[in-house]
């Protein structure tokens, strides 16, 4: 008995130690339109419960990748698995567990919001009528349920699209530019809704051009350029790796072979809830893992008086990595926690420099994007 329970405990411990299997696995994906390769060996994973931001310039291949995931396009080569199911082999099964919202999707105009959702509930063979009410409540469309779809704003139509893909309670949501053409309020509402859905355990993959918004919601990102995935992984890890490269280059060290010739970061093949697999080159050659450098955080300080004086006092301080003045604002890169900000403020106040504003720089994603992409379009 004790041996048995011991064995069970060991198994349970082993299971707990194993990383969760990725919900979305994209492996060596290739696709071609005519003579043009639109996807070249794209490989990345998305772990369960993550919000994965898919970023890239126009024509980079984001929508093609997404359409392959949504079973609407068959790749020339490679494999995509959603929850362990091959999208090419078993699209019907995959359709049951995904909710796909295309960019600029159309809606039926001459029916009401409720009728629209009832139609899709019937089409999805949703077992209970109450699901429509639940989805209306979740997406906050209850008040508009009797309104004709034609009379709704763009933002509300996007919300309706989101409601549609939630009807069959999919595990995975694939959203192609969900906030495009929306006003700021609608964007914020969509963002909050996505966070709420993540709270419900959904795995979300969304593509967008609006990097600041992605950085607010995404747990990890993938950047695609000219059909190649140039980087993938949690934002802070990518940031750390870039910092490490930058630091190594500043000290005259030759960057690892994969980085030589450019400031590019190799794709991270596995992003499984923060557990990083071995580094792999796109061609499949195994690469040693990059040593993790402490993440550099950034803050903007608005000061009374001369900002250059404030910069002078901060330069060379403990944990301060870089200081610059742009447009009368002091930009500080530092290593450490929020206590470091308090120390900086205290330090400047002691030197009679008034602080009127402290604002963390949040557009880390923009920096990453600009650093790893070349601005090439195809």
């Amino acid at each position, binding site marked *: 008995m004790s041996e048995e329970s011991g064995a069970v405990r060991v198994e349970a411990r082993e299971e707990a130690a194993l990383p969760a299997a990725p919900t979305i696995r994209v492996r060596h994906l290739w696709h071609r339109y005519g003579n043009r390769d639109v996807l070249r060996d794209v490989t990345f994973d998305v772990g369960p419960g993550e919000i994965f931001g898919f970023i890239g310039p126009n024509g980079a291949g984001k929508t093609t990748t997404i359409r392959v995931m949504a079973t*609407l396009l068959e790749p020339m080569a490679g494999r995509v698995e959603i929850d362990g199911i091959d999208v090419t082999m078993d699209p019907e099964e995959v359709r049951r567990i995904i909710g796909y919202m295309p960019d600029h999707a159309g809606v039926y105009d001459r029916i009401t919001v409720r009728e629209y959702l009832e*139609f899709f509930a019937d089409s999805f063979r949703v077992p209970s009528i109450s699901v429509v009410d639940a989805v209306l409540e979740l997406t906050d469309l209850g008040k508009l349920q009797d309104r*004709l779809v034609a009379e709704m704003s763009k933002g509300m139509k996007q919300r309706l699209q989101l409601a549609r893909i939630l009807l069959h309670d999919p595990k995975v949501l694939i959203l192609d530019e969900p906030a495009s053409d929306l006003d700021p309020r609608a964007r914020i509402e969509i963002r909050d809704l996505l966070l709420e859905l993540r709270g419900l355990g959904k795995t979300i993959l969304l593509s967008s051009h609006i990097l600041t918004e992605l950085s607010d919601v995404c747990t990890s990102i993938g950047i695609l350029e000219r059909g190649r995935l140039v980087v993938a992984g949690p934002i802070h890890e990518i940031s750390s790796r870039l910092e490490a490269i930058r630091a190594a280059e500043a000290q005259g060290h030759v960057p690892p072979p994969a980085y030589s010739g450019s400031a590019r970061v190799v794709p991270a093949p596995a992003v499984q809830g923060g557990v990083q*697999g071995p580094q792999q080159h796109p061609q*499949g050659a*195994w690469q040693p893992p990059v040593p993790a450098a402490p993440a550099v955080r950034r803050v903007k300080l608005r000061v009374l008086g001369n900002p250059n004086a404030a910069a002078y006092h901060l330069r060379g301080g403990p944990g301060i990595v870089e200081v610059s003045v742009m447009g009368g604002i002091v930009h500080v890169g530092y290593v450490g926690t929020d206590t470091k900000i308090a120390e900086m403020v205290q330090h400047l106040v002691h030197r009679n420099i008034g602080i009127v504003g402290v604002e963390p720089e949040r557009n880390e994603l923009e920096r990453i994007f600009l650093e790893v992409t070349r601005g090439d379009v195809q």
Partner: protein
Amino acid sequence: MSAQTGTDALAGPVSKRMGDKARYRFRRLLDDPNPLWIRELKQSARLVRTPVILCVLAVLTTLLIASIGGLVSMNESPATTGYVLFQVFFSIAYFVVTFVGPGVAANAIAAEREGRTWEAVILTGLRPAVIARGKFMAAYTSIGMYVVMLAPVGALPFLFGGVTATETIVAFAFLFLIAGLAVAFGLAISSKMNSLRAALVVSLLCAVIVSLNVYGFFGVGLSIAAHSLWPGVPDGPPVWLPTAYSRAPFDLTYLGLLVGLPLSLAVLPSWFLYEVTVANLTSITDDRSTGLKRWYAICAPIFGIATTIPIISVSPGDRMGACIAALSAHFFFLMMGVYLFAGDSLGPSRRVVLHWDRASAGRFKRFLGPSIVKTSALELCVGFVALALPTLAGLIAVPASSTRSALHAAEILIVAGYVAGFFTFSVGFAAFLRSRMSTTLVARMLLLAVHFLVAIGPWVVAAIAGVVSSASDRSALVVAAPSPFYVFLAIDALGRGGDDILVGGSVFMSVAWALLGLIFLGSARKRTARIIAQHDAALAESDRLLAAEDAAMAQASDPAPEGPADAPSAEPEPVQAS
């Protein structure tokens, strides 16, 4: 459960008996209807222009019928007036449903694609067949409303006399049947189109051409044949079929020509259009072939039987002509099959094979699946069986009624032989082209070009050589033997006698076409097998690499074994695969 109708889920049929199954299906239609149908009805109900159009149409038709009735009744008896109005009304109604039906249906799928709602629908998991049925029912309901609005006007002629109530009811039944065909036709075109305008233009153009031809041939044309067969049916009026049911004597011919033929003429095209729609809505790597091949396998023999009926039914003197006409009709039917299946896949995709394996599909089901070589084999087998029916009927019926029985039998065999030979060539060549072309459109276009060259080219050569106009040396016309039209020259030569070379040319080309077809088919088979083997090898290699990568990843993510750091491992460490 239907959220749209608010009804609860239905339990399955009480038993496996046909009656219970039919009852269950009917209850499901009422309580759990096709979601697309219900949604489109709701959308249509909010379209303001529909009732206006319906009212205007009904008023205009009433005015027209009343005017014609007034004019005709001045000189004719009420019975004649009623009959004229009956013809006018159902002719108008025929054109309304054959023009509006495809137009309404063309809107169905192309509008969804253009409006970018299509992807949302297919991602719900609705099968293409369910989508096709929903769209059909929605369009059919719309066109049905037109017929219902016109019904009171259609009953007016019945009040004058000249037509019976049964004839009016049968005419309305045919109107609904034609409406169904028109909608299915529009839907089949719509399923292929991405643009609404293109779908509308193509549907309407085709609808105008087809409906005018059908009206002329099956209406006015066949009324003369019907009159010769049943003198009670007047010759000339296009709407003769509803009247024939009450005016023709009930016998075997009645059953064959008034029940069998109209049924097969309605069911087989409807089924074909349905299968085309479903195939067009199905992904190219799914099984798009089984439905169409099943239709062909059943339809070809039925078509064979249908074409034998006139051979037996007509007067003995006309049987030879009926037989040649039946063989010619068969030739066109078989050629249509060749073009239809020229777009089949080289072989089943992995997905299709997986579905077959899951469903434990038998050999016959797999035979009906995607594969250009198997399709060609099916085409040849079924095509020859179907072709044999009118040929045998001709060989039996024509010589029995003719003094020149041996000659007629030879004529029938020459035509049937040429049809069989050229059909074999076309099937083999289509398979050959398909195995070498990446797109089906190119394969079909090349096939069409070759057919055109073969049909016309030899006559052009003959004309250039001056043998067409030369009355002295008819035998030189043998240069035109490769053209299928040459067979008519051969049977003419056989009738005249003395032009053995012309007849011999026809026989030679029949055999040559058949041999060429078989050679092409053999080549297509080899090439297809090689392509499929290469494809399977590439997929197996890809699977192997992905599996190796998985194993390497699993190995890399395995936690290090616990124990002293310097303790030697029990087994040598595996080498990391690069």
